């Protein structure tokens, strides 16, 4: 909470890096890592993510097993147990459901250093429909022992995650998107009055909540590109009506950064989680459990409906339908604050 804007790179939203898909950032980072680290193996499952990629001298460490997610996870466990560092590539839906038992017993329980690169997280599959959605994956992975769970909010954070976990001794679940998303903003948005400046976008550190913005009344906790951007914009919106809202980017769901969460929620009347996931068991669950253990706070858990009605459509269409856009988020926060004014919290 002591960094200042002076440390920020001199980027503005206009000149910042163009939107990029976290899955593509991951792919490029992996190619770099494979060139540097001879332990790294890329196991593919006919995803097409590496079509045309140049593995150079690492070419024999790229193995496409075909459409065989279970085998890929178990084989990765065997490779990891033998000293290799396999990255298994599949969609989040298949990593967290189709192949779950292999992930559970042979990767998580066994504590093997397998990296699961899970694309199409949340409703990123959009138009591809419900069988390709991963709205339960964070709850599932959070229940597994040993699993480090990272949801990068932009391409730079994805690269940082790949780099920083190179020597992680246990497994990693890396939830990635599909279509390009903008980088997190690095300077105050020009038109809105801000109680505090946004934080500089230093690459996040795995295991540490990234404080994007301080705020007194409300604390947003988000993960992933769309939720974090929506929380930032909602905080701006609220600032316009005199509500001071902080924004935490909780990119690492496990191990969870209890200390930073508690420090920032200490004075808040409301803690609002925003996630591209069902409301049960994911980020909202992690925050609710952590707070209940130590310092219970009223919460608003914003995510996708618990009912069957997630629907199908483009990613943005679904997010909007479920109120994961800035305006409805801000509106819900206002209502919650009004119905439980600070003094009663």
């Amino acid at each position: 909470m002591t960094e200042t804007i002076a440390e920020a790179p001199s980027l503005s939203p206009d000149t910042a890096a163009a939107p990029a898909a976290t899955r593509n950032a991951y792919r490029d980072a992996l190619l770099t890592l494979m060139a540097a680290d001879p332990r790294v193996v890329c196991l593919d499952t006919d995803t097409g993510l590496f079509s045309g990629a140049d593995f150079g001298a690492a070419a024999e460490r790229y193995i496409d097993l075909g459409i065989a997610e279970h085998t890929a996870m178990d084989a990765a466990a065997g490779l990891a147990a033998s000293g290799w560092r396999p990255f298994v590539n599949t969609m989040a839906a298949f990593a967290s459901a189709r192949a779950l038992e292999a992930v559970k017993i042979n990767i998580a329980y066994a504590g093997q250093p397998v990296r699961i690169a899970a694309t199409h997280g949340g409703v990123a599959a959009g138009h591809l429909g419900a069988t390709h959605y991963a709205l339960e994956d964070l709850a599932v992975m959070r229940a597994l022992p040993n699993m480090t769970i990272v949801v990068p909010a932009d391409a730079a954070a994805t690269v940082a995650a790949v780099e920083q976990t190179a020597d992680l001794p246990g497994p990693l679940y890396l939830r990635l998107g599909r279509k390009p998303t903008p980088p997190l903003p690095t300077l105050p948005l020009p038109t809105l009055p801000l109680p505090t400046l946004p934080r500089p976008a230093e690459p996040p550190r795995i295991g540490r909540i990234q404080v994007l913005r301080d705020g007194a009344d409300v604390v947003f906790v988000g993960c992933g590109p769309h939720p974090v951007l929506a929380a930032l914009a909602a905080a701006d919106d609220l600032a316009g009506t005199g509500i001071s809202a902080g924004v935490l980017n909780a990119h690492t769901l496990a191990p969870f950064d209890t200390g930073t969460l508690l420090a920032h929620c200490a004075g808040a009347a409301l803690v609002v989680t925003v996630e591209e996931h069902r409301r049960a068991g994911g980020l909202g669950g992690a925050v609710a459990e952590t707070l209940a253990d130590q310092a219970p706070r009223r919460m608003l858990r914003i995510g996708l409906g618990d009912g069957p009605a997630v629907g199908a459509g483009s990613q943005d269409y679904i997010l909007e339908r479920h109120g994961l856009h800035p305006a409805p988020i801000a509106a819900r926060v206002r209502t919650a604050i009004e119905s439980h004014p600070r003094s009663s919290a």
Partner: protein
Amino acid sequence: MTVMAPATPGPAGLADVADRIRGHVVDMCAGREGGHLGGSLSIVDILTVLYFGVLRVDPAWPENPDRDMFVLSKGHGALALYATLAERGFLPVDELASYGQPGSRLMGHPMRDIPGVEVSTGSLGHGLSLGFGFALAARLAGSDRRSFVITGDGELQEGSCWETAACAAAQRADNLVAIVDRNGLQLTGPTEGISPLEPLADRWRAFGWSVREADGHDQAALAAELGATPWEPGRPSVLIARTTKGHGVRFLAGKPVCHYATLSERQHARARASLASFQRGSRDQALPAGTPLDRPPLAGTPLVEAPLSQPLLSPGEPA
């Protein structure tokens, strides 16, 4: 959007129907989301024969409890299914133009809430087991309802397919029919280069199925085989249909790149032209006499032609 004159195929006019379905598929791939072009085109003739010559289905009452069940296990062939359902009268042909639009129920993979779609698919390796469940249901009910499933060939790399293959044979589910779209390609390349399936017929036989092979674009051959199941009482049937991914669009057919395409205006026109010349060459196909065309397709369904206005082919981009 140009609405062309309606066409009414007679029993011998299935080639025309398939031509129109291919047209729809190509048109939908020129929309904003693009689509799974190749794997849709490879199953058009199979779907045409099934829906116009084999399946006992009822567009007027899609949930008719006596209907045969169909499962598109390779759910990414959705475009071909939508177009077939439209031509068969389950959907207004107009609705095909909504594919890829916000709020449309026509998504990249079929969803249950579309009339005629029995089950949502898209994750590979589930259709056979779902179809097996339908087959068990029919047996328990003492009904002669049948269950047809189209799987991809790459899809058969999923172990779940073989798990179910064994179960279905064990249960003597001879009311279950699988059709393998043996186009030789999966998402990134040839099946035999990634994880070979051959000798595929031997595999199925060793799992207790009755196996036949056919040219998956020869409607007469398909109708002859699929119209006469079970081939061996007590055994489920699998037809290995030799197909071409992207069939009908010469500059894409058989190329891995046709898996997913967002056709530019120019490409769309070219694909349409390719289809047209292809169609002229395939006019001699017709159903053999005696094929069970018990419910002729609805007349009067218009053929949609989408505007030629899209920017880019984005093959190579994984879905």
